[in-house]
Each structure stands twice: as structure tokens, then as C-alpha cells.
């Protein structure tokens, strides 16, 4: 766990960068999402602070602050998943990496990315069906505030689709990359 530190600060990790147009478009989208997600995190902190303040100084309780914070944070987490993947920020066990020849390691990364894409793509598809259900059947949360659930589900769906696209682009970049053993 990096605990608020960049990979560069812990001396680990590394990002994959490509100049293909699709990569540049996704990188731009990710940049905007990271800004919006950062704002969402701060907003969530403000919402929770607000609830403490009004409860103790103005003596009335709010019933929406917990769920609002959940939506903001879950949204920020799912939406920024692709940006984190772009920098290979989802950590894995890299114990065998140093033991493999470069060419084998290149194939390993491609296979791992393909397996990750298969899972994330499947999850994205299931998110779409859940979102569709939530809209058609008008799902609401069971709290007294009862906000519609299409809001967080749509953020989860969009985030997982973006993550899948990011993985796909990384696989394509990996296939196009020159033979590392050459």
C-alpha cells in the first residue's frame, strides 16, 4: 500500500504510456475524471463535517449525509479506476517478474491484462444490466431519504467500462510494442 505516496516516492511501480490517438483521448478523459473525483472526495468530507456541525450547533439531524457521501466516494473510486490502471496503480504480486526472461515477461503481462480485461469487461456488462434494472424498476435505497439507485450504479457502470477500455488499450499497446528480447 502506498498510503498517499506516489510510486516514485516508494521507489516502485511504473506507468505505461502510448501516443496512439485513442490513448491520448482516454488520458484526457482520465485527467478530467481525476479532477472531478478529487472534488467529490473533498465534497464527501465537507458533507460529513456539515452533518456534525448542524447536529451540534443548530440541533437538527440530517438523513441524507451518509448516503450522499457514499455516492460521492463510490463514484470517485469507480470513475478513477481507469486512471489508476493507466499508471499500473492496481497492485499485484510481482515476485516472479525478476525471474522471467524479458520476452516471457512480456507475454505474461499480456496474458494478465487479457485476464483482467475479461473480468472487468464481464463486470462492466453485469453493471449495465443492473443499471438497466434500476432504471426500469425504479430502484431506490431503503433509507428515509431514498435516493434513486441509478445514480451510483451509473457511476459504477461508467467506471468499469472506462477501466475495460483502458485495459484493452494497454493490451493493444503491448501487442504493438517491439519484441523486448530483440
Amino acid at each position: 500500500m502506498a498510503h498517499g505516496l506516489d510510486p516514485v516516492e516508494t521507489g516502485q511501480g511504473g506507468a505505461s504510456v502510448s501516443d496512439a490517438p485513442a490513448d491520448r483521448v482516454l488520458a484526457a478523459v482520465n485527467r478530467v475524471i481525476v479532477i472531478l473525483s478529487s472534488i467529490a472526495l473533498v465534497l464527501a468530507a465537507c458533507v460529513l463535517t456539515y452533518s456534525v456541525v448542524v447536529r451540534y450547533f443548530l440541533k437538527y439531524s440530517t438523513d441524507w449525509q451518509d448516503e450522499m457521501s457514499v455516492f460521492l466516494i463510490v463514484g470517485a473510486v469507480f470513475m478513477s479506476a481507469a486512471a489508476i490502471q493507466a499508471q499500473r496503480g492496481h497492485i499485484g504480486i510481482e515476485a516472479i517478474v525478476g525471474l522471467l526472461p524479458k520476452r516471457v515477461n512480456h507475454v505474461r503481462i499480456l496474458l494478465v491484462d487479457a485476464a483482467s480485461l475479461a473480468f472487468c469487461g464481464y463486470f462492466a456488462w453485469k453493471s449495465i444490466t443492473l443499471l438497466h434494472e434500476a432504471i426500469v424498476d425504479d430502484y431506490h435505497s431503503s433509507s428515509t431519504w431514498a435516493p434513486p439507485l441509478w445514480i451510483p450504479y451509473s457511476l459504477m457502470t461508467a467506471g468499469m467500462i472506462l477501466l475495460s477500455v483502458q485495459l484493452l488499450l494497454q493490451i493493444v499497446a503491448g501487442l504493438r510494442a517491439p519484441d523486448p528480447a530483440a
Partner: protein
Amino acid sequence: MTTLSIGLLYGAATLLVMFAGMPIAFALGAVATLFMIAFMPNGSVDTITQNVYEEMASITLLSIPLFILKGSAIGRSRAGQDLYGALHAWMHKIPGGLGIANVFACALFAAMAGSSPATCSAIGSAGIPQMRKHGYSGGFAAGIIAAGGTLGILLPPSITMILYAVAAEQSLGRLFLAAIGPSLLLVTLFAGYAMWKFRREYHAAKLQYERSGQESELLRIDTMTTRDRFALLPRVLPFVILLTGVMIALYGGFATPSETAGLGAVLALILIAVIYHVWTPGELAPILVSTLKESTMLMFIIGMSLLYSYVMSYLHISQSTAEWIVSLHLSRWILLITILLMVVVLGFFLPPVSIILMTAPIILPPLRVAQFDLIWFGVIMTIVMEMGLIHPPVGLNLFVIKNIAPDIPLRDVIWGVMPFVGLMIVAVVILCVFPEIATWFPDVIMGK
């Protein structure tokens, strides 16, 4: 297929994908999904996204990104250096006072930031050069910071504790309080060792001076005026007030843990804006981006670990394994040692979050049968996982140290850290003999 075969297959598939280097979150999610498709009733897999969302949408879990935001805000300001400087000014007359000041600075900073590597980075970047300037050996200086930093996952608000509270269905407030006594025990052990080791290095330097006339920096005595001592206090006090204020908000019943996290994050951002003038978007961006990176990575692992545990439980793998462990009728201490060794080995490969969420359904029932206090065990397990932060092969804090003091050979860092690993083992033994060190404080504050 029997539960045993499915369980073995589940474990083997997990090991395979994880050691292939697949990101932990995706690996856990993929294995869980495959087993849902293969072994659970048709339609189960349709609820996979709802499962993950509902597990992640817990307000307690979602306090984690906010605690990370608070830690990141404090970690990236000059608060660490100022805190360290103030403690040094006040303790420089004690033998080994510089080393002890570093241990205390790590503990206080860890309590404010809640992160081990951030503590290492913030205190170490000022503390290691100072200690070396004063003649401390590189390994000793690195060991103090790496070990002091581990307190970040033990002292409240610890992310590891939040997850343990969720996984073991224990009171988070009680867990936070239970960690305070053992943290003080570790601080005392670390500071005691720093003093002892300083005296050894000091005597060696003195002997060398007497023999060869070569004067070491260790023999130099700092002089600081009362004005020096008070000059740094105004910068440090607000952060200490933040620390105590957040604790009062939590334990005084003013705020829930998640509200405390939100309040702490907002106050930390206000403090760094007022004291260090960090408020422009350009200055705040690295704080927010690093928070987002770590939160997303962690929350994905948490969400998928919970899905993984759900499948393990649905297929009766966790229950059968727990029943099997109980049926071995191991003595309670052998059971505890076996479980802790397993945690150590898992710590070679996995971050604490995954270890807790993946193993809790298996290890907690036998511990409950053996009548161990699960709050006490949460503290013990966290200290054991702390060791994973400073011993190879992973030892994240070692990498942080290597990065802030690249000229200290990794070998020296590792050897410098090893005595602290030994002290942590001693702390675990002491806590086994005197569990009240952990359980007394929560009992007093919150009742039995």
C-alpha cells in the same frame, strides 16, 4: 465435487492468478466470479455487481478514503519536519534523545496521518539526515524510522483496524482504544532500544577518540536555548489539537467514525492552508491525486476481497476450513502461533487489507472457540502485519527509506531494522502474557 476439492481448487486458482502478477483486486474478483459461474446456482452471478456495490457502500469502509485524505494532507505538508524539530529541541539532552525524538515524532505523526509509509517519508526525510549528521550509523537511523513508521497501522485512525472491525464485526471505537496501550508499549520498547544502541555507538566513538584522536559527531553536544524550544511549538500545537480534537469527537459521542474521518480531513486541509499556506489548486492537486490513487486501489481490493469471501462462505469453504481447524483440538497458544505464522507468511505477498478480509472468515471462528478476545486479537494481528512492512521480501517501509536515503545500502537498512522486528515479537509475547495492556483502556472508557 466435495467442499474440500472445491476449496483446494479455489485456493490453487487464487495462488495461480496472483503469482502470475494479476492485480490483486482483479485476481480475487475473477476467481470469485469463475467459481460463482461453476459452482453456485444459476443467476447467482447476476448479483455480482450488486454484491460488490453493497459491500463497498458501507459508510464505515468509506471512511477509509477520508482518513487517507487527512493523512495525505498532513503527510505532504511540513508538519512532519516541524513536529520532529520540536521534539528534538525538547529531548536533545537525553542520551540518544535524537533517536527517541524520532520515535516519538513517528508515533505522533502516525496518529495524525494513519499511514506507515507516509510517516516514514515525512519524519525520515528530516530525521535520517539529522541522525546521520549527529553520527548515528545509517542502519540504526533507518531502523528507527522504518520501525517508528509501522505505528501508522496500529495507532488510531488505522485503516487496518477499520477493516478488521468490519470483517470481525467488532466495535471500531473499542479497537481504536485497544491499540493505544500496545502502541505505547512499542514506543517504549523502540525508545529504550534507541537509547541503549546510542550508548553503545557513543562508547565505541569515545573509545576510538581516546585511541586515535578521531572525533565522531556522536560526541558533539547540541546546545539549544529555551527560545529555540518554544519557537517551534506554535507550528506543532495546531496538529496536536487536531489529533486530540478528532479523538474527542469520536469518543465524546459527537461524531460517528465516518463523520470523524470527514471532519479530520476538512480540519487537516484547513490547517495546512492556514499554517503552511497550501491552498492553491496546484498545491492541493498532489494531495488529492495521491489520495485518489491509494483510495481507489484499496477500495477495489476491499470490494473484491469481500466478494471473494462471500463466495468462499457460500460454498462452505470458510466454514469447513474453520470447523477442520477446530476439530484439530490444538492448544489455544499453538492455534494462535499457527495463525500468526500464517499471517506473517501471507504478509510476504499480500497487503494487510487482503489478509484481513480473506482470512477473517476462516481464522476468527476457531479463535472464538478458543475463547480469545477478538479485540485483543485484532491488535496482535495488526502488530504482526506491521512486521511485514519492515521485513523482506516486501517491507514497503524499507523501500520508502531507500528512497529518502539512497546512500544507505539496503543491507544496512535491513540489518538496522531487524532488532525492531525482534522488539515487535517481544511486544506480542508481552501482550499475550498481559492482555490487559490492550483490553483495559477500552473497558474503562466504554465499559465491559
